[in-house]
């Protein structure tokens, strides 16, 4: 018997109270003056034994009640109780790389054998995974697992291993288990995964479903007015060549040839003027490799663009650096950002509803109508990025939204002050990932002093003052950068981190207006199938293209040993993982409920004995 919170057992020491009282009161009966003691003396003597028995029963009931209460709070559980029947978890990779000829059948065979190896009484669960994990058979009989396994087919997702371990730990619920992972061990399955953790109580058995074949894939397509540029990647050891086709609305519109070296990619320019509407498919033939990435779908309809208004002072360099940073996205890609500039004085006459975001770099001559226009724009769902520059007056900004003293003036920065993301998961900083340290190279000489009331802090200066804060106004967002973006109070625009910072900030603020056209399988909006293709979705029946994740087409494998080394094992008998296991065990057993019930019974018994 173990306890989740053993410290509560100290509460059991409270039994000393009734015990001490029992012994104190046993012999010390208070003197009571009385007159008819002569009559009392003639009373039966046997009463004392009965009283003693009653007192002992009362003492026992009270002690038991206190002990049960302490034990219930300590949350008891039996560590070995759930280990009576072991658990076998069979996880099978169903990413599109498993669609190589004969591979998935082999994987099914391996998984079936893993199920057959289950001992009598051993529970078996079956997981199917790509970039999502599905429990196709909950822990149960091997027969049910085999039935569920037969229904699994390879799909079009990309391999992601970490979620398998998370799901396995969840199913094991702190108990010991064996995870048999059947996969082609695609190295790309670890892309973007910093750390995969598997409890030590779960043994890992990796079974290789077979070496990946050489694969050709169309990894991207870009369209210019007079040609189509397709990137073809060869993950095989031999150079490959062949034909590449452009199909428009189901008809071959143009063909070309390509030659790509071993383990490399090549951009193939196809001379073709694509129409302005409809969908286009760029395809190659790769009978030996994976079929799902042989074609790539492109939507030709002019997509919506995010339009950003820079409110500048009208003088150089106000807005110059931001405009250049946003121009780096390109004018043809989906998700491009159209940049417009305006002065604060002209803001009142501008219709802000056509913009997805406004960057406020100056408040000079911003009149009441202009302020109301900005406030209405944000509260209607627009995004506003404010830079705390010398061109922006804090009082005017506060007046836009009736903020009460969020900005309390400017502060001079020591030379060493830099930027440090407080929340690396914030959408503005998320793309930086491990490169966020680059932000630390920026030097800030002056900034606004911002009180945190009502703001969520995304980043701070290294002296602790808020640097990037965010708040909601109506249905829109306001992001306030405490220093300027025109290289007056800092050298931020001169650093490489400036471009992604500005782009991500503007994208984040434009997110409610962003309606992309290109999706990866599994991430497309409702209405699209879980396979590549062109689909019409949404209330506006817009056209989108869904393609496979090109990373899956890079058929680089890893050995079982190397694979196992990528998995961090955590001892579940100690530390936080042990706590998690204990919590799972305790939650499943819930002996504390019985403890409290018994305690109530003890108190009821005490009540009856006390009245006797």
């Amino acid at each position, binding site marked *: 018997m173990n306890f989740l919170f053993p410290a509560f057992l100290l509460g059991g020491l409270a039994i000393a109270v009734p015990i001490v009282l029992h012994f104190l*009161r046993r012999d010390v*009966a*208070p*003197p*009571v*003056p*009385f*007159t*008819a*003691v*002569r*009559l*009392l*003396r*003639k*009373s*039966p003597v046997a*009463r*004392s034994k*009965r*009283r003693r028995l009653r007192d002992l029963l009362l003492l026992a009931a009270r002690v038991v009640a206190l002990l049960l209460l302490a034990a219930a709070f300590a949350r008891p559980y039996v560590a070995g109780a759930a280990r009576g029947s072991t658990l076998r978890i069979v996880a099978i990779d169903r990413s599109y790389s498993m669609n190589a000829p004969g591979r998935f059948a082999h994987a099914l065979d391996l998984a079936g054998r893993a199920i057959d190896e289950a001992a009598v009484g051993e529970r078996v669960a079956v997981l199917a995974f790509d970039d999502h994990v599905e429990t196709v058979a909950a822990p149960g009989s091997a027969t049910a697992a085999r039935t569920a396994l037969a229904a699994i087919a390879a799909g079009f997702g990309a391999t992601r291993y970490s979620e398998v371990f998370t799901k396995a730990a969840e199913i094991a619920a702190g108990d010991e288990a064996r995870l048999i992972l059947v996969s082609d061990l695609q190295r790309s399955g670890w892309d973007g995964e910093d750390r995969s953790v598997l409890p030590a109580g779960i043994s890992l058995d990796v079974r290789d479903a077979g070496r990946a074949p050489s694969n050709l894939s169309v990894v991207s397509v870009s369209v210019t007015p007079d040609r189509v540029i397709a990137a073809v990647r060869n993950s095989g050891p031999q150079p490959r060549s062949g034909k590449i086709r452009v199909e428009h609305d189901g008809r071959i519109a143009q063909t070309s040839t390509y030659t790509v070296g071993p383990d490399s990619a090549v951009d193939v320019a196809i001379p073709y003027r694509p129409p302005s509407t409809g969908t286009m498919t760029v395809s190659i033939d790769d009978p030996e490799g994976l079929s799902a990435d042989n074609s790539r779908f492109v939507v030709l309809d002019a997509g919506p663009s995010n339009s950003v208004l820079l409110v500048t002072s009208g003088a150089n360099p106000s807005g110059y650096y931001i405009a250049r940073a946003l121009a780096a996205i390109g004018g043809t890609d989906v998700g491009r950002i159209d940049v417009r500039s305006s002065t604060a004085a002209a803001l009142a006459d501008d219709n802000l509803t056509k913009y997805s975001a406004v960057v406020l770099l100056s408040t000079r001559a911003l009149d009441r109508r202009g302020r109301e226009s900005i406030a209405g724009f944000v509260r209607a769902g627009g995004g506003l990025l404010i830079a705390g520059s010398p061109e922006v007056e804090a009082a005017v900004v506060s007046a836009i939204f009736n903020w009460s003293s969020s900005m309390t003036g400017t502060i001079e920065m020591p030379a060493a002050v830099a930027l440090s993301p407080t929340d690396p998961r914030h959408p503005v900083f998320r793309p930086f990932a491990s490169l966020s340290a680059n932000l630390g190279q920026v030097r800030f000489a002056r900034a606004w002093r911002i009180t945190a009331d009502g703001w969520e802090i995304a980043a701070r200066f290294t002296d602790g003052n808020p640097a990037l804060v965010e708040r909601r106004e109506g249905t829109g967002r306001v992001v306030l950068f405490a220093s300027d973006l025109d290289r007056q109070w800092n050298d931020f625009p001169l650093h490489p981190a400036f471009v992604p910072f500005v782009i991500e900030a503007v994208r984040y603020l434009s997110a409610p207006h962003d309606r992309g056209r290109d999706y990866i399988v599994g991430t497309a909006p409702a209405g699209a199938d879980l396979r590549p293709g062109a689909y019409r979705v949404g209330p506006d029946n817009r056209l989108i293209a869904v393609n496979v994740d090109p990373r899956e087409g890079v058929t680089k494998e890893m050995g079982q040993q190397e694979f196992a080394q990528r998995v961090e094992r955590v001892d579940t008998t100690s530390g936080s993982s042990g706590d998690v296991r204990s919590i799972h065990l305790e939650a499943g057993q819930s002996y504390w409920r019985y403890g409290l019930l018994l305690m109530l019974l003890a108190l009821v018994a005490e009540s009856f004995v006390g009245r006797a």
Partner: protein
Amino acid sequence: MAQTSTSRDLRFLDPAVIARLGTMELKARTVVEGFLAGLHRSPFKGFSVEFAEYRQYLPGDDLSTLDWKVYARSDRHYVKKFEEETNLECHLLVDVSASMAYRGGAPMSKLEYGSVLAGSLAFLMNRQRDASGLIAFDDRIAFRMPASARPGHLHALLLALEHLKPGERSDVGRPLHQLAEALVKRSLVVLISDLLDDPEPAIRGLRHLKFRGSDVVVFQVLDPHELTFPFRGPSRFRDVESADEVTADPASVRAAYLRELAGLTLRYDRELRGAGIDYVQLDTSQPLDFALLSYLSARSRRK
């Protein structure tokens, strides 16, 4: 000082009590002695101040009543008794033993309650010009005031009741025998005691009084705690007179105690009534007028 005495007397002379007794006054006299004219009958020939008899002097007798001539002749003290004092002579015997000082669940101790009862009876007697006397005793006679109906006697008696102090152990039998020997004429003897001692001496003493021709009324005054034994939790019950102790759990001994008390009550009731003695058990938590009415009702039924 006079005012203080008067206010203290009033405690015994609760107007409400007197008013109620007033409606029963003549019946009470008829039942107790029947000496007085009107509703009750005297066994003797009317009122007079004629000499009736000599009686040996007892401590507490008025020295003015000593017959010095007889003393000169016989060298013994005798007091003269006159007919007017024999209408009804009531002796109020109040137990002042330590147990009478007990007060459990009532507003008054048993001694206070008994004193009020005795005062009320004395007042009643005085109103009918009957003689009333007081004897306070524990294991001996601690105080004695001869019966008299003279003006001022009631006040003295009430004052004496006011100043009664609890004594030591009680022995009801001994003073009863002493009184029985001293009484030379038929009297009304009212015993006010808790009667928690050995009942045998008390019963014998009361029978002795009855045998000597006195009419006897016994008020057994008990506290509610003595009647119900409501104690809780193990306790050491210490006798207020003997300091004897009994450790007991009240819950377990209550029934046996109440049985013992009921047996004692039953014995008093049976043996005293068998001897022609009235026996009334009083609860000090009950109103005093209720106690007197209970007694008078009992006397009324006896008539």
